[in-house]
């Protein structure tokens, strides 16, 4: 199953690269935050996949905590942008 790992990481790597480009050259702050939100969800799925690669069930807990913190981060920065005008 080694080839499948390479296929997964190539596809996800291109997705992460594209959203990182948008985070670098997005015109407004909301664009950057949208790219960051996408990046967080992609990384949550990738951490769950790492549990399969390294054969260690602890990565599922890490993914759960990472998802919780990324949600709080998105809502907090969005509320901050909304109040700033």
């Amino acid at each position, binding site marked *: 199953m080694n080839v499948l790992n390479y296929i997964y990481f190539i*596809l996800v790597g291109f997705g992460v690269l594209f959203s990182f480009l948008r985070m670098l050259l997005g015109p407004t702050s909301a664009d950057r935050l*949208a790219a960051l939100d996408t990046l967080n969800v992609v990384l949550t799925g990738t951490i769950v996949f790492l549990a399969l690669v390294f054969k260690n069930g602890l990565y599922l807990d890490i993914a759960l905590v990472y998802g919780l913190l990324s949600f709080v981060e998105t809502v907090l920065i969005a509320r901050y942008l909304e109040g700033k005008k």
Partner: protein
Amino acid sequence: MIILGYIFIGIGAFFYFLGGLGILRMPDVYNRLQAGTKATTLGSFSVILGVGFVNMDYLPKALLIIAFIALTNPVGSSVLARAAYLIGIKPTAKTKVDECKGGDEI
């Protein structure tokens, strides 16, 4: 069951790729939000369910993470779209109808 799990993981990786492509290519912030959030939500369901299928010990926690993502990801996207509308970011010039101002043609 292992082959089915890896098929799910491949579909999820493809949807992650499409989400990144939509984030890069779409014209304004609302289209970018829709492309990124929808594609990556489906990709996350598929990848995490595939991991649960390949190793059956991981299935309960995988279902917990799926339920969590299904609850939180649309909420974050909605809050971000509302903030972007309220600080006055213009949609792209091809937009015909603004439903927040009553639905009349601009």
